[in-house]
């Protein structure tokens, strides 16, 4: 039976994909707790009392469900399936790595403590003060959104002016080039004294670090618009405003997105540094505050949240870029 064979093959691949995490659950359940000073205190969570091992196994179970669902969905398309099976080995390795880390970090505590807690130990931070971490994440997100969006708006705006008017280019481009290479956090002392609240000071820092790459790349995109396109547009009735917004800006769009991608990396760095240096909240603040108490599991927890948050933001930007640049060669599927 050919069809049966296919189903079997799919089931096999999906099973392999999640088997690493299954092994991690088994290891966590069966390996005895050798090290004595690991806290197995129970915390209320969703109506239950759970300890760190329960939480860890729950996370693994969620991962298994997620990749199981992904696999069943991927079966539908040939390309999706190819991608899924390609990543199967990596997922398996992740599961094994988690199991190993669990044994060395939590069960035996061979890794130096308190610097390298096990995966379950990190989850303790979420069990203890999940809502506090959430509040700090929201603070970071607000700060980042405000700075990033304002920075992109200012960046595109000045970029258009620099690219379009040679006079503006003459006077502004050198200033942009010199101030642009200075890491934004260097302005921190000024920002903190000049702005009424720490929040607005940090927004200012993110704005300038986003502004520089976006402005310079927008300008170069506008400047490189072929003359022929302007000329054709003029014979079709276009006046200056149309030439700027319906010829130069769309032409510059790929470069604007290059600027935005660079800017987002700068923005993450500036955000965390600004928070570590003087904010009443945010993930950077949380890391700093936890470090003082040697609560490194909390530092790891914040790092994991950042990893997830920043990759989601990067994905969102990439999605917008893909939509906006559908017309480009190579970006089209």
């Amino acid at each position, binding site marked *: 039976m050919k069809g049966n064979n296919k189903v079997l093959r799919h089931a096999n691949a999906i099973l392999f994909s999640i088997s690493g995490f299954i092994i991690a659950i088994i290891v966590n359940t069966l390996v005895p707790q050798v090290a004595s000073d690991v806290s197995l205190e129970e915390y209320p969570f969703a109506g239950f009392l759970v300890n760190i091992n329960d939480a860890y196994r729950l996370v693994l179970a969620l991962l298994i469900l997620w990749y199981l669902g992904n696999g069943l969905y991927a079966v539908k398309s040939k390309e999706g399936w190819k991608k899924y099976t390609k990543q199967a080995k990596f997922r398996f390795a992740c599961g094994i790595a988690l199991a190993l880390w669990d044994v060395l970090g939590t069960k035996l505590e061979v890794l130096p403590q308190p610097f390298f807690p096990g995966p379950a130990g990190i989850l303790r931070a979420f069990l203890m003060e999940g809502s506090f971490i959430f509040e700090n994440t929201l603070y970071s997100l607000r700060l980042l959104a405000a700075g990033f969006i304002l920075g992109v708006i200012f960046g595109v705006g000045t970029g258009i002016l620099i690219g379009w008017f040679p006079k503006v280019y003459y006077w502004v481009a050198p200033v942009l080039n010199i101030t642009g290479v200075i890491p934004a956090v260097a302005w921190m002392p000024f920002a903190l004294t000049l702005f009424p609240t720490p929040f607005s000071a940090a927004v200012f820092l993110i704005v300038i670090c986003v502004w520089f790459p976006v402005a310079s790349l927008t300008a170069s995109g506008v400047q490189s618009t072929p003359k*022929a396109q302007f000329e*054709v547009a003029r014979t*079709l009735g276009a006046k200056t405003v149309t030439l700027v917004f319906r*010829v130069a800006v769309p032409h510059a769009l790929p470069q604007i997105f290059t600027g935005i991608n660079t800017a987002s990396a700068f923005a993450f760095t500036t955000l965390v540094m600004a928070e570590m240096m003087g904010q009443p909240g945010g993930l950077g603040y949380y890391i700093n505050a936890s470090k003082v108490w040697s609560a490194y599991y909390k530092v790891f927890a914040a790092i994991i949240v950042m990893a997830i948050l920043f990759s989601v933001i990067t994905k969102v930007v990439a999605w917008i870029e893909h939509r906006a640049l559908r*017309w480009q*060669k190579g970006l089209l599927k």
Partner: protein
Amino acid sequence: MSEKILEIRDVKRVYKDEDNEVDALVDVNLSVEKGEFVSIIGASGCGKTTLLRLIAGFDKPQSGDLLLDGEPIKEPSIERGYVLQQGSLFPWLTVHDNIAYGLKVRGVYKEEKARVDEFISLIGLEGFEKAFPHQISGGMAQRVAIARALINDPEILLLDEPMGALDSFTRADIQDKLLELRKKKNTTMILVTHDVDEAIYLSDRIVIMTPRPGKISEVIDIDLPHPRHRGGTEFLKIRRELLEKFHLAAAEPEPEYMI
């Protein structure tokens, strides 16, 4: 049909370097009638593109007048459509939106939407409305460029070697499309080309230009009926005459061979 639409009188255009002056155009006189197809041919550097750009309004002469319907040409306008050699389509717009561009810029897209579809079928690109320029062939792209230039119903269509970068089959196809569009829309067309066959196949009149200084050396009427046969006796006769003229026009005449 003998209404003058374009008049060029004593036009002179000089390009200045630091210490050099190049006479791009001197003593250019030409008038074009409504509905006429005029080709401008000549070796490179004879100023044919310069002349077309003056007519388009991208550039201004040092002296002399360019009049469209008796009015001096000051800047580019929708009265003069313009088609370039290649790559002037807006890559971020679909075929449909490229053609609709002129209507959208003028804010009349809603009222005249139907014209876009009319042109898409006129150039035979039904089914490609949603394609982006990089997804279509060079020949298709040039047809789109021509439709885009005609969407605002210009009085004159200026063609700057629009078929220069195409292979000869695609070229012939577009030449026929141009004649068809001209017949349907009765648009006056001025074509700059270096292809003698193309000029004979399309034109009512051929303007021959010579370089250094760029000027019109001769204007030839082509009285053949359409459709013209590219291998017909009359066609070939004109072709030979024209080529001979070019040899005479060149600085050093080449020896002729008799078979």
